[in-house]
């Protein structure tokens, strides 16, 4: 087998440009395939890892219509509800040319306990790290209206630390004097789930609310959504229906869903991403398949004379077929393998590049498995036809062939 492999290797080396280009095409194709599959699996992971025991209450009209702040006190009284926090998108930016990050105004008194399974504060005031950091950061948040907790990568990217003031320019909540909003960093969190972004800033909603009211907003300045944790024994659909019934007559009707369903709606807003990605992946595989098949057909055509020699020496039809098939597999596995390795190798930088658009971007092992399977299949498809052709070649005819 090893000796046969020498012949395969020599052929690939002899036609190094053709082999190299085909391998490069395969590497690119498998990298892209891993990438498009990973987009779909990351989106699906965001849905599956979202809590089913957490409800999202939003306006029945649109996510962009605010709900009155007075709803919180009513929601918390619904049977089965454990805790409630406001959840308001801020939409500010630090420097316009920087990659944007998300900021949310939350009820600091409830948010961090509600999301204890999703994120963990790992650094707090006074240089505190570890278990004490969370308590200290929440206490600091309670004491400072401008306090904010930021993600680990946000801290790393901008070099922000505890005690720093971060000025953000608002696009939605602009002040009359156009001045920036200042936030004081009191804590740094790390995500505990793949669907939680590590580039988000959580700050006190009442800072936003009070400032906007002072700037002339209505006194019942509300929030875009309320997140509701339900008790373990409560049925999510029953609680959701109870909340919606509560506001059936307004002033704003609500639409309550589980967080998982809410994530699914977001994914659906992007269109049928899995179908689109599947088409894209299929097109990539087909395009590279033609290239590999062409390469192997050329190899087989050039190998007719040599096949005659091998058969004259006593190589069986099956042995000759095996040689070309092995060459096809080596070509595909080397090229495809490089692409697959690259996809996994630069997973981190890809996740960074995706940012908040696709938090938790990951190239799963199952994705690598699929790409490896496709690579093997390509090797088989590209090699089997030409191999059968050479296997069937009459030795006396093959010896008369050129090349």
């Amino acid at each position, binding site marked *: 087998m*090893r*000796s*046969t492999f*020498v*012949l395969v290797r*020599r*052929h690939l*080396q*002899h036609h190094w440009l053709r082999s190299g280009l085909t391998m490069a095409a395969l590497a690119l194709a498998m990298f892209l395939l891993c990438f498009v599959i990973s987009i779909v699996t990351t989106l699906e992971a965001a849905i599956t890892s979202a809590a089913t025991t957490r409800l999202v209450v939003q306006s029945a009209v649109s996510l962009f219509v605010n709900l009155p702040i007075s709803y919180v006190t009513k929601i918390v009284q619904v049977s089965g509800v454990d805790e409630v926090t406001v959840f308001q998108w801020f939409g500010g930016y630090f420097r316009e040319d920087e990659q944007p990050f998300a900021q949310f105004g939350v009820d600091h008194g409830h948010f961090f306990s509600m999301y204890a399974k999703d994120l963990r504060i790992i650094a707090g005031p006074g240089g505190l790290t570890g278990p004490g950091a969370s308590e200290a950061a929440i206490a600091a948040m309670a004491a400072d209206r401008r306090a904010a907790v930021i993600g680990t990568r946000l801290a790393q990217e901008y070099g922000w630390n505890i005690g720093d003031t971060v000025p953000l320019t608002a696009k939605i909540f602009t002040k009359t004097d156009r001045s920036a909003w200042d936030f004081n960093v009191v804590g740094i969190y790390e995500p505990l789930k793949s669907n939680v972004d590590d580039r988000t800033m959580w700050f006190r909603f009442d800072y936003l609310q009070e400032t906007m009211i002072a700037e002339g907003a209505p006194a019942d300045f509300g929030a875009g959504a309320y997140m509701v944790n339900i008790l373990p024994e409560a049925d999510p659909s029953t609680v959701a229906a109870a909340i919606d019934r509560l506001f059936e007559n307004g002033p704003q009707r609500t639409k309550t869903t589980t967080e998982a369903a809410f994530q699914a709606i977001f994914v659906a807003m992007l269109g049928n991403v899995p179908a689109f990605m599947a088409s894209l992946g299929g097109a990539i595989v087909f395009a590279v398949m033609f290239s590999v098949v062409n390469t192997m057909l050329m190899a087989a055509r050039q190998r007719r*004379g*040599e096949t*005659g*020699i*091998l*058969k*004259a*020496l*006593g*190589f*069986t*039809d*099956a*042995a000759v077929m095996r040689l070309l098939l092995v060459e096809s597999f080596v070509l595909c596995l080397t090229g495809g393998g490089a692409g697959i390795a690259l996809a996994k190798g630069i997973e981190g930088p890809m996740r960074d590049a995706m940012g908040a658009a696709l938090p938790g971007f990951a190239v799963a092992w199952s994705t690598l498995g699929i790409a490896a399977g496709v690579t093997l299949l390509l090797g088989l498809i590209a090699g089997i036809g030409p191999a059968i052709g050479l296997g069937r070649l*009459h*030795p*006396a005819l093959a*010896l008369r062939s050129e090349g």
Partner: protein
Amino acid sequence: MSALIDLVGVTKRYSRGAETLTVLDALQFHVEAKDFVALMGPSGSGKSTILNIVGGLDRPDAGRVEVAGSDLQALSSSELARWRSRHVGFVFQSFNLVPVLTALENVMLPLLLTPLDAKKRREQAAFALDVVGLADRMHHRPRQLSGGQEQRVAIARAIATDPDIVLADEPTGDLDRESATAIMDLLGRLNTELGKTFVVVTHDPMVGERAKRTLRLDKGVLREAGRGSTASVRGPG
């Protein structure tokens, strides 16, 4: 004792469109062990067809082919391939070396089909190259060798597995006179010293002169053309 090569009543036809061409018709051809037979005749007379049938590369349409004690007609395609690897070595006009392999690796190719381990294969291939006088060229690729040297590598490959028979199709056809003479010297030496049986197809009168027997094939008829032993040749009619 039967002949090493025994072709009895061998007929071979080729179809070209609607036309059927009978190249060999009830041919008798017998070669004893350690013989050196030259097959001569005009182009298209069927010399190479005889060689292909004897070497198990082609099958006749009728007749019996018994070579080295095996009835080749009774063997399947894969059995025939294995039989070739044990009993026959081929030498071709255009050398037919694998261009991507070195001389040593080319000679090792037929040894891959033997139960020898890698070390033994290497040793045996090196020995074969030494026999043909190319021990100092074993790591050269075919394109780095002269025509005569390439043919000597091909001869080394043909004898590497120690076959009973070496079949050579125009072995001097692509060589200059000096190289052709050297190749014939080598083949003669392998015949007399190692006892290999040679059947050589040629147009070259010099090759015919050096053979123990020369047979001429013309219009399907195989005739004894010169010196030699038992002429057992009969063509049609």
